[in-house]
């Protein structure tokens, strides 16, 4: 649907059969419509330029200078340093520690969240009708809850003596660690909490995607003797690939910016074992190293983009569709031309 619309809008002057073609033959009407449309867009655009686009550009300018908090009163004293900040960030051992922690969080957390959500969604979709709303609502509850309240509850849950987690582990004869005070176990605790907090959104997305998998495919495979796992592996997963990609991308974007959990739970400790890049950026802003911190935030942005591209590579469409898409991509610029 959206691809079709994009084609239509992208194809200025192309022979597309639609009502819009008529508009383009009458430039005065098109010009008037442009004016009206920008009138509609104006309030949003003004707010957007002021409070989003402006700060993004200002941050970029900061990243290329040695701006510190005391320079705000005399901006002329600030020097342009180019990519010096980025070099300093990449060489900083604390940043490297934070980057390693963030990578650990993302590389374990994203697949874990995706797999659990896919498993729950698949089971929910296997013909369960009773209690379906209860399950969906229950799994979604953490998503709508304030992180501050979650932090309070989880600090209590993870308490070594009076916490529910270690109590339950004790039933199975496991002596649970002092989660948030342990350099080994603090990060797994963060990952568990993030998974618990994000799984609801993905379940809803996967459920919507599963509705699009034709039941006839499953029926045919079942007649051919395919078991439940084989049908999941060779029918559900391939059919769901675009949905899984979307889920991986939004989860990845969120997890790379991993900040709130350590901020409210551990303050990056113990011994920086839960310090994330976003948290380190926040700290550097707090210390007044604006240029340095802005450079770090852009490093984070690049990481988000790279992860997204990687996910498109790994999970994107395969074979036939990819070739077709490339051809389509080649065709569009020709149509856009004068």
């Amino acid at each position, binding site marked *: *649907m959206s691809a079709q619309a994009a084609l239509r*809008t*992208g194809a200025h002057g192309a022979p597309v059969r639609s009502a*819009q073609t008529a*508009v383009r033959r009458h430039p005065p009407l*098109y010009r008037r*419509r*442009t004016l*009206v*449309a920008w009138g509609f867009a104006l*309030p*949003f655009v003004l*707010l957007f330029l002021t*409070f*989003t686009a*402006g700060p*993004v550009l200002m*941050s970029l300018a900061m990243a290329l200078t040695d701006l510190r908090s005391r320079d705000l009163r005399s901006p002329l004293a600030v020097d342009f340093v180019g990519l010096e900040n980025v070099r300093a960030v990449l060489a900083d051992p604390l940043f490297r520690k934070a980057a390693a922690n963030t990578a650990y969080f993302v590389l374990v957390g994203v697949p874990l969240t995706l797999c659990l959500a896919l498993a729950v969604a698949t089971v929910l979709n*296997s*013909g*369960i*009708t009773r209690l*379906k709303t*209860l*399950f969906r*609502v*229950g*799994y*979604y*509850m953490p998503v*709508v*809850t*304030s*992180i501050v*309240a979650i932090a*309070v*509850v989880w600090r*209590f849950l993870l308490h070594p003596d009076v*916490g*529910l987690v270690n*109590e339950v582990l004790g039933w199975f004869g496991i002596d649970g660690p002092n989660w948030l005070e342990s350099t080994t176990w603090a990060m797994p605790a963060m990952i568990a909490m993030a998974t*618990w907090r994000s799984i609801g*959104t993905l379940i*809803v*997305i996967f459920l*919507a995607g599963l*509705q699009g998998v034709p039941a006839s495919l499953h*029926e045919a495979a*079942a007649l051919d003797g395919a078991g439940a796992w084989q049908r999941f592996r060779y029918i559900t997963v391939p059919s769901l690939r675009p949905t899984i990609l979307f889920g991986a991308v939004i989860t990845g*974007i969120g997890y790379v910016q991993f*900040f*709130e959990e350590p*901020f*409210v739970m551990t303050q990056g400790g113990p011994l920086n074992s839960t310090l994330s890049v976003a948290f380190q950026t926040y700290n550097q802003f707090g210390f007044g190293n604006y240029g340095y911190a*802005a450079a770090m*935030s*852009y490093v*984070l942005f690049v990481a*988000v983009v790279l992860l*997204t591209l990687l996910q498109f590579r790994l999970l994107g469409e395969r074979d036939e569709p990819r070739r077709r898409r490339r051809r389509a991509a080649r065709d569009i610029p020709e149509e856009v031309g004068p």
Partner: protein
Amino acid sequence: MSAAERVEARQGGPGSRRRTAQGGFGEPRPHPVAYAVLGLGLVVVVSPFVWMALSSLKTEGEIRQVPPTWWPEAPTFDNFRELFARLDFPQFFGNSALVATAVTLGNLVFCSMLGYVLAKSEFAGKKLLFRVVLGTLMIPGMVTLVPLFVLVANMGLVNTYWGLVLPFLAAPFGVFLMRQFFLGLPDELIDAARVDGASEARIFVQIAVPLAKPALATLAIITFLGSWNNFLWPLVVATTEEKYTLPVALALYSTGQNQTDFGLLLAGATVVVVPVLIVFLALQRFFVQGVAMTGIK
């Protein structure tokens, strides 16, 4: 069938009968094991909330008991009473409600106006506008935090309601959601009104907006709760207690010397969470619609 319709069908709205009929032979019968697995998962996900609510009714002594108790031995509201005596919760609640309402109204108006023209009008600069707005969805919040604060400080809006509201009035997510919805409206409907000589403003107000009620409801609820739970920006901008929102008040109270007052903190968490959960339970289908609308297609 659009994503929203599919969601409705799943919930037993119009058309659900057709789906069951289709299901027929091929769909496997739900296995008892499926219910067991889902039930176990549900217990894991929901029990922190239950434990929070039950423990907030315990005395500090019972909370620290080893092994922990599940059901409060002598339920008491003392934690809540003491919390309300120490902190001005009605004020924080009012602040949260005011900020969230203002942000929601702004997003409904501005995002639907832009979303409408992006979906239903041809104009110069449309593609660029859409790409720029959508592109910012990928930019980490950290990038804009300090420049935004400097900007708000220069405008003299630190520790004001305007400072809490203005930066969130125009969110790209809302534009994306509204555009996706308006794309699904038939072109003929809009074109017919245009041929009849209706102005774009009139078409928008009298045709597009009334049809977009489900999408607007979804956007309203998602925006409201997002704003209600927003934490970092109010923490930075609200500098005195009379401007604190609920999460900020709880966050500041829960760090430092009160860190170990579990009873009070759990009562605070309950106060923050329970109203949200009630709203969510009452309106849960709109969340599902929102996710389905923006997520698929």
